[in-house]
């Protein structure tokens, strides 16, 4: 309340001030009006067209904050009241960004749903006024136009967007556990049709300009310009403004109509949707699909459907009301707080806190052209990084090169790349069988088999050729980097870069530093990872680092649960219904049974009893029978090319039967099984923070969610503890501790949090 009152007075204050100098603005319209007190908006008049330029100070992006909101309102009031002005253009002068969305800090500072609802209602009012404006307003969009930015744009009478790769329109609110709260649930279905609107709002996917034009989301496209007598980005924005001004004039003169011709398909769809029965069926279909995908763990998508439905069935007044109220409710949910926390963490993990490296990596070399090596090469060459891919045999190398080519070619098929761009990217890749050219490499990433001797050999071979400044990175999921570095002549240049498979799809990169790794080496690795488009966590060296170490006790529990007689299918459904994207048994198959055994054995030795649980024997027997998981066609399931529904591998029954463990009834309910898995994971994660393997809780959450599929709706282990209460988790652990002893003993840091409810990982 206090905040909104303060803003109200601020608005009055600025309004009266500009009232006094209105004459001044008019006289100087051709010059920049930056002299005014406004900080986010610069406003001028060209002929009879008002040009409203947004550029929030000290930020890479424009966000719809309270200040921007009130400055915009004030400017619009001037536009509406001036007899000289007949139309307006709304544009951002910030390169690569129109408006990236609402100001999340504004939402986070709210403590009640009423406050959030009020913010939504204010925005709704403003945008409704804008929508009903008798003076046409043209939104000129260059760069990201997301969330509130899109809601603003679709309230305007006309939209012109640059056909730039950076120009993306979308409603990503659902990814933050909320809904578009400034009218999009009501306007979007009318503008692009219900199916497309649902798709945008329920998936949050960004839409490129050319697609937006086809959908009717924007009315005109402007091609980005090359160099002229000033920088291309600057001139492109200027040109966009010039074009928008001509359209604004045209609209005011009624030479152009904002309505667009609808295609036959669109006409038919809208006819079909005018029948209530068809509409109901469609809502039902969409809801079913959403239920299936979210498993009831994410409230926002269903609410979005509800709100859209309310608007269509009961009129827009009811629709707007429902939108703002639901927006308020959703913003207060744990899911939303968890997702927003993840979003912040992701933003943090996309920055290089180690600063710029002394020497930027220009030439990369990847040793090992297997799945991982080729994947690493792919995400490097498509960012313009010169990459050598080395293997020892021609067939192995050829397979790797083909993987890179296929990865790029799939993008051509999806039309996100042209065949020419693919060729140019692919030319950044040099495949070879020897160390030629390594003398010019700035970084070597080895991705050979997980065998210490082999890694030692590669390190020695590479160090014989590479220059002094060259970083040697090892891609391994469990071998301690310190041990790999023992044979190095220059251990300060040795670092771990743990990629996740498939490399081109998984966003996470775990970077592992030893005590000897220099800061510049770390900066260099983070820099390369960021250029490869990764979200990065930097952890200290140790057995299993962070991610593998958290996963291992959980996997041990998976095996025990299977041994206790829970079937793989049942276990899979228990884990997915808890929010894991992949079931626990399937995860073992996907990762490879041999890998799981290798890791369990190694880490089991290091950590002893805490990592115990299921018997290693299960995995060993599986390996002896050739059940290595998906790669060998058989694991817990049977995998066949082209067969979608996988069947259980019946040969597993005898293995599990022979190694059966007695189940303990008081800790074997469905919920207990879920919590046995999750609490072991969470406890280990917190121990990693306690021991300093992790530097921040945020990195722990990002690593767990982006690397291991920890349920995003829980926000990662640390958000989970914060939001659900440390005490509850400790209680669970104590309960399981009585059954399974040390494996469930809560770590000290967790106990500390349970003892002091004010202690939070995120303040």
């Amino acid at each position, binding site marked *: 309340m206090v905040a909104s009152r303060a803003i109200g007075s601020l608005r009055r204050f600025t309004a009266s001030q500009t009232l006094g100098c209105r004459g001044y603005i008019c006289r100087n319209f051709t010059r920049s009006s930056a002299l005014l007190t406004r900080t986010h908006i610069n406003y001028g008049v060209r002929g009879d067209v008002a040009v409203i330029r947004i550029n929030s100070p000290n930020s890479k992006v424009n966000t719809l904050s309270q200040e921007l909101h009130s400055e915009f309102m004030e400017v619009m009031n001037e536009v509406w009241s001036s007899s000289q002005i007949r139309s307006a253009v709304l544009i951002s002068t910030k390169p690569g960004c129109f408006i990236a969305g609402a100001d999340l800090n504004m939402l986070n500072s709210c403590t009640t749903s009423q406050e959030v609802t009020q913010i939504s209602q204010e925005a709704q009012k403003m945008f409704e006024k804008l929508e009903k404006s008798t003076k046409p307003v043209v939104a000129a969009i260059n760069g990201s136009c997301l969330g509130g930015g899109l809601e603003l744009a679709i309230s305007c009478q006309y939209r012109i967007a640059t056909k730039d790769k950076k120009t993306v329109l979308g409603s990503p609110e659902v990814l933050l556990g909320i809904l578009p709260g400034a009218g999009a649930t009501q306007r979007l279905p009318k503008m692009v049709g219900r199916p497309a609107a649902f798709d945008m709002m329920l998936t949050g996917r960004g839409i490129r300009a050319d697609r937006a034009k086809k959908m009717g989301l924007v009315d*005109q496209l402007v*091609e980005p*310009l*090359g*160099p*002229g*007598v*000033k*920088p*291309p980005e600057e*001139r492109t924005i*200027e*040109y966009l403004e010039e*074009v928008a001004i*001509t*359209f604004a004039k045209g609209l005011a003169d009624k030479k152009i109509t904002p309505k667009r011709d609808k295609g036959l398909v669109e006409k038919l769809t809208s006819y079909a949707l005018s029948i209530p029965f068809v509409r109901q069926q469609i809502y039902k279909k969409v809801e079913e699909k959403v239920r299936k995908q979210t498993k009831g763990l994410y409230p926002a998508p269903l609410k979005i459907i509800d709100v859209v439905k309310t608007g269509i069935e009961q009129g827009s007044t009811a629709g707007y009301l429902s939108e703002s109220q639901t927006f308020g409710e959703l913003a207060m949910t744990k899911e939303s707080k968890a997702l927003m926390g993840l979003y912040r963490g992701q933003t943090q993990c996309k920055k290089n806190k180690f600063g710029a490296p002394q020497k930027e990596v220009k030439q990369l070399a990847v040793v090992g052209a297997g799945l991982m090596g080729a994947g690493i090469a792919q995400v490097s060459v498509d960012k313009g990084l010169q990459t050598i891919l080395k293997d020892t045999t021609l067939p192995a190398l050829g397979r790797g090169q083909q993987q890179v080519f296929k990865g790029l070619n799939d993008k051509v098929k999806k039309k996100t790349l*042209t065949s*020419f761009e693919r060729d140019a990217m692919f030319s950044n890749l040099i495949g070879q069988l020897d160390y030629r050219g390594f003398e010019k490499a700035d970084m070597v990433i080895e991705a050979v088999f997980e065998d210490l001797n082999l890694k030692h050999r590669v390190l020695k071979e590479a160090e014989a050729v590479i220059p002094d400044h060259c970083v040697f990175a090892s891609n391994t999921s469990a071998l301690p980097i310190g041990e790999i570095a023992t044979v190095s002549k220059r251990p300060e240049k040795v670092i771990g870069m743990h990629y996740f498979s498939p490399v081109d799809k998984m966003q996470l990169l775990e970077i592992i530093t030893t005590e000897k790794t220099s800061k510049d080496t770390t900066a260099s690795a983070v820099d390369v990872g960021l250029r490869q488009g990764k979200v990065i966590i930097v952890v200290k060296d140790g057995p299993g680092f962070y991610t593998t170490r958290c996963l291992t006790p959980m996997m041990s529990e998976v095996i025990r649960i299977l041994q206790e007689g829970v079937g793989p299918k049942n276990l899979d459904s228990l884990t997915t219904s808890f929010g894991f994207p992949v079931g626990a048994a399937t995860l073992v198959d996907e990762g490879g049974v041999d890998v799981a055994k290798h890791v369990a054995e190694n880490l089991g030795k290091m950590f002893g009893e805490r990592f115990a649980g299921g018997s290693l024997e299960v995995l060993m027997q599986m390996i002896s029978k050739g059940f290595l998981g998906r790669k060998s066609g058989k694991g817990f399931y049977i995998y066949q090319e082209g067969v979608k529904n996988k069947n259980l591998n019946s040969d597993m029954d005898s293995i599990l039967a022979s190694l059966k463990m007695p189940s303990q009834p008081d800790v074997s309910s469905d919920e207990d099984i879920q919590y046995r898995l999750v609490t072991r994971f969470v406890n280990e994660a917190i121990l990693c923070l306690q021991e300093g393997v992790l530097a921040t809780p945020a990195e722990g959450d990002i690593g767990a969610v982006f690397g291991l599929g920890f349920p995003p709706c829980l926000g990662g282990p640390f958000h989970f503890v914060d939001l659900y209460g440390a005490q509850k988790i400790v209680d669970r652990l104590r309960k399981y501790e009585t059954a399974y002893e040390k494996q469930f003993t809560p770590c000290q840091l967790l106990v500390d949090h349970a003892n002091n409810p004010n202690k939070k990982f995120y303040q």
Partner: protein
Amino acid sequence: MISLLTYTLKNLPNTSKWALRFCMRPLSSSSQLQAAAASQTKSKKTLAKPNIRNIVVVDGVRTPFLLSGTSYKDLMPHDLARAALSGLLHRTSVPKDVVDYIIFGTVIQEVKTSNVAREAALGAGFSDKTPAHTVTMACISSNQAMTTAVGLIASGQCDVVVAGGVELMSDIPIRHSRKMRKMMLDLNKAKTLAQRLSIISKFRLNFLSPELPAVSEFSTSETMGHSADRLAAAFAISREEQDEYALRSHSLAKKAQDEGLLSDVVPFKVPGRDTVTQDNGIRPSSLDQMAKLKPAFIKPYGTVTAANSSFLTDGASAVLIMAEEKALAMGYKPKAYLRDFMYVSQDPKDQLLLGPTYATPKVLEKAGLTMNDIDVFEFHEAFSGQILANLKAMDSDWFAQNYMGRKAKVGLPPLEKFNNWGGSLSLGHPFGATGCRLVMAAANRLRKEGGQYGLVAACAAGGQGHAMIVEAYPK
């Protein structure tokens, strides 16, 4: 920066208007300029280099350039090329067996005559002992033909070379689709009836959809007109400026035609039709009428229209290039020396048509000349917007520093010396043949106007460019 921009903004239309008025004036005033130019030349040095043969253009001709689909529409490219070669033989009376080599440039190749130089030479009655080859480099193909000739002569391989270019846009090779071609080739190989039937059974109706020669850049999939529109926008060139420049080109071409200055044109008796004697694309219109046209590429708000772009053209050209001593020994009075030349290339997306901007300072530097030394400019006009963008780029220190790695701009060519007898916008632009026309226009203008140095420059698809210094042969 802003002041620089406004300066050029103000300056450009003014000068072009001025030039327009200037060319409307009676002849007497233009002869004043000639006198001035002639007196200037006396102080200039020649560009002859020690130990390198002087290479001369004895003379050059071209067929009239016609809009595609008019009188040449039933011909094949080698017919047009033949006409140019016969015209050259007639004009120069060079004995056929003296010619050591023949080189032609072309862009859209007729598949039957892919080495069009050889087919045309044979048909034009040249000795079957004279080898011939064809080169392609988009709109600077015949420039490439001429500079290849220069290379052959300079290195002592040849003494007499005919270089030329041809383009017939009335007919283009439209192919079967790849699927259809594959099926036809497979059918060829099939041995048994069963095999044939199985191949035929795979036929689908969409196999019949034809494949047109690409009008867009292969690397960027952007058509040239589209790129030109973006280029004009990048340099903030208005529709009015472009229309004005196009009108200038047409008016100057008309005047040159009427005064008989286009002496490189040779009449061509087209089989089954009347003799064609002059270019048919020169159509001075009015700014009002041009303003009515809708944009051709970026719709609905672009600035490049049919009226301010060069049109699809049929035509051929040829020049006779010799070592100076050979020409003199044969009793010729050459028209010009071919001096330093330069090829450049840059980003094919955003700088597709900026070749002249890149090539001009380099070739001037190489020849030890400055913009002020040039008496005659002949630039290829692909689009009004392209010419004006190049002019602005050449006049921009910012562009020179940020994109060309130069300390300062090369400067603006004075419009009163620029394409005074029209250009590709008005005379037409048969892709493969324009280069020779530019060189002959420069040579003929130098003789007529009395200057010493001419600068020829052109842009080409693929983001390439060319410039060459033409020096008048002393009278």
